[in-house]
């Protein structure tokens, strides 16, 4: 054996240089994060901004969505799938029925069909509420897995290239919460992927319309995706009375503690930044008390309802009525309406109620 030192000087220097380069790169991280992501975010945001009621007319020209309820609903689905292309697309659709998959499809179809949201090759993110890893879906603490999986299937059928489902649980870890919620199994069976949000990726983004908060550390994919579908479950929540679409968006930011210093306005500010193109509220089962964590089946009420709208404020306002409240009772819904992010006036909009038995 030759008496070589364990590491030659040259190799040592190479290694040092590599480490130094890595350190230098790491060192510039915090400075850049304030500037660079801001422009990427705003540019990415622009094409997708206004979910105005007029946008819905695109749906009229689109062909009837491919036979949505193929397997499950041969009889009931056809009467509801047909009115969609003939009538003007609804501003909001509320579907009732025992099959979560069928009502999800019916509600989205009534808005003009998934093809009015998804074009071929789209990168779609679905944001359910997977707040904790404590309970299975019957406890109504996390979004109904069938509702989420149905949306995944619909997006893929409409030609989406990739559908990712993500949340950042506050209780338990992402992987375990995804699994316990039943969403992992359902989504993966439907061909979507469960995505874990990595802290390394959060970037600071300005909120141009923000009233109380002007910037936030956010998971950038949510802003960059071609389509963001917000899929909250309707639950009681003592701070805000109800956790619905707006509250569900808190899952995409890093520091949620600071939100609580002025929760209603700050959620509205966040909503103005994220502006999901589609909000689908899962009210298959709702949690009427002890939310958002739940755990008592006595607090769960079977509603067999799904609400869908491009207007997050209107959807939240409607969902509030399921609890005997109005949108104005809920701070962040009112503040969002004040900012012009949607309408609270349910009498002024075209709501299509669909009953699937």
């Amino acid at each position: 054996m030759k008496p070589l030192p364990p590491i030659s000087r040259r190799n040592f220097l190479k290694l040092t240089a590599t480490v130094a380069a890595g350190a230098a790169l790491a060192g510039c991280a915090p400075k850049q994060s304030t500037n660079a992501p801001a422009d990427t975010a705003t540019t990415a945001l622009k094409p997708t901004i206004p979910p105005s009621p007029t946008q819905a007319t695109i749906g009229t020209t689109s062909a009837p969505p491919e036979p949505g309820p193929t397997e499950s609903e041969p009889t009931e689905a056809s009467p509801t799938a047909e009115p969609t292309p003939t009538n003007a697309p609804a501003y909001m659709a509320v579907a009732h029925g025992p099959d979560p998959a069928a009502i999800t499809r019916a509600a989205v179809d009534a808005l003009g069909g998934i093809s009015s949201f998804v074009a071929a090759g789209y990168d779609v993110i679905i944001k359910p509420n997977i707040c904790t890893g404590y309970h299975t879906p019957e406890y109504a603490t996390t979004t109904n897995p069938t509702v989420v999986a149905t949306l995944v299937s619909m997006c893929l059928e409409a030609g989406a290239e990739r559908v990712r489902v993500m949340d950042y649980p506050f209780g338990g870890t992402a992987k375990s919460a995804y699994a316990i919620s039943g969403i992992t199994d359902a989504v993966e069976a439907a061909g979507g992927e469960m995505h874990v949000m990595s802290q390394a990726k959060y970037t600071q983004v300005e909120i141009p319309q923000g009233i109380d908060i002007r910037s936030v550390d956010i998971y950038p994919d949510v802003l960059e995706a071609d389509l963001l579908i917000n899929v909250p479950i309707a639950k009681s929540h003592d701070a805000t009375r109800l956790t619905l679409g707006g509250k569900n968006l808190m899952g995409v930011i890093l520091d949620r503690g600071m939100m609580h210093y002025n929760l209603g306005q700050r959620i509205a500010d966040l909503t103005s930044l994220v502006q999901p193109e589609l909000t689908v509220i899962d009210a298959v089962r709702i949690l009427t008390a002890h939310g958002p964590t739940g755990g008592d089946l006595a607090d769960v009420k079977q509603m067999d309802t799904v609400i869908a709208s491009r207007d997050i404020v209107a959807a939240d306002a409607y969902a509030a009525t399921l609890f005997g409240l109005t949108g104005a009772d809920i701070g962040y819904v009112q503040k969002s309406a004040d900012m012009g992010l949607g309408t609270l006036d349910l009498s002024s909009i075209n709501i299509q109620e669909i009953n699937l038995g």
Partner: protein
Amino acid sequence: MNWAGWRRVRQAVQILAFAFYIYLIFGVVEQRVAPPLSNIFFRLDPLSALGGMLASRQWITGLALALITVGLTVIIGRVWCGWICPLGSLLEWISFRSARQRAKNISQKLRGVKYFLLATSLAAALFGSLSLLALDPIAIFTRTLTTSILPGLFYGINSIEKALYHLNFLTPALDTFEGLVRGTTLPVEQPAFAQSLAIGMLFAGLVALNLLAHRFWCRYLCPLGALLGLLSKVSLLRPVIGSACTGCSRCARVCKPGAINPDPQNIEVMPSECTLCLDCMASCKPDDIRFRMARKPAAGQDFDLSRRQALGALASGVAGVLLLNTDLRLRQDNPWRIRPPGVTNEEAFLSNCLRCSQCIKICPTTALQPALTEAGLGGLWSPLVVPRVGYCDYGCTACGQVCPSGAIPLLALEEKRQVVIGKASIDKDRCLPWASGIPCIVCEEMCPTPQKSIRLEEANLIDSSGNTVTVLRPSVLRDLCIGCGICEHHCPLEGVAAIRIYRASS
């Protein structure tokens, strides 16, 4: 197969055992269900088993696997040290050429230190203290990886990723990498531990001792090695130099642990120091070093403990226990000495906890932290719940699953949800709604108990600008609170939370 072939087998087994150990360390990232075998190295460790059973005065079935190691040692010697022990393998691989020369200047007597440590540890265990099990090699390695090496590694990876995410063309590659490892191999939350630097430096020092002698720790200090060394003195098969010996003493020169007495008149392998690396057998020109049956115990060595030394070791163990138990810290009922779920009796816990750090490793929220002096010096590196750092996850039973000695009881999820580890208490002078009239109910929101252990009451009060505001003020329902600490963890107040978990008085 010749000896050189067997030597390669040994190296392969070492690599496999090491890789398996590291795989298990990584296998528990973010998991609330422990992978099977996750604590297998501790369960095979006779020092942990003997210490744990002596101190807790009970048969611990989970640790009975150590009998396999004992059995192997009694048959053939310290096969654990040379073939399996991951710390031993690491120290073998980090080898310094200059150490060979330096080792000659180290007195053989120093080898007695490990026996002294063993005797002291076991004496202390007999009197109920497992503090010295912190020196178990598997515990040392696991603790260092858990609290020091891995968090540093994760931080480094995150920092590099953060920087690289600014290079847009790398984003797809980074996303792919993230998708593969995040939440499975790499944790979502960056772990942080008390004493990470100190524990890392102790480990670095232990490795640096290799500059003085090959596997310095194993030769001179390791109490587990000492225990196995004692057993090896009576092992059935021992490496014995046969009559064909030419007295060339090549075997003594190649023996890395220095287990062969080089005196040509009296050349012999000391079974207590031999780690079965097979180097001597492979190098013997007449090929006459073999495992041979032996009936009599091996001859004593200079460094074996004399009767006086042995008594001294026992006495120091006992004295140590007496002094540790009169530590003032144990008398002061430290309200933040919160133990993992299911632990009820502090004294019994300290007599049962192997200081192995497995629970600290698996806790998905890094709520479990190694104690420094919170439980007295005797509780060094035992696990504490520190809710501000991490909460006890309402859906998790992982610490009980990995605890090899049962110090943390194995509870079903429903049982664990009832277990009280502490009680929350609100500091009304700091709590936002109480003190400042700012609406905040995060503690109530987070509370996982089905009926909510925090009640909100509406109150009208005058805020700092003189306006009358209506806020919801939280108060703890003591009967319902289980002390999981998620309220303290998520309390948005800066610094110390306005709601804190205190040890539940039993």
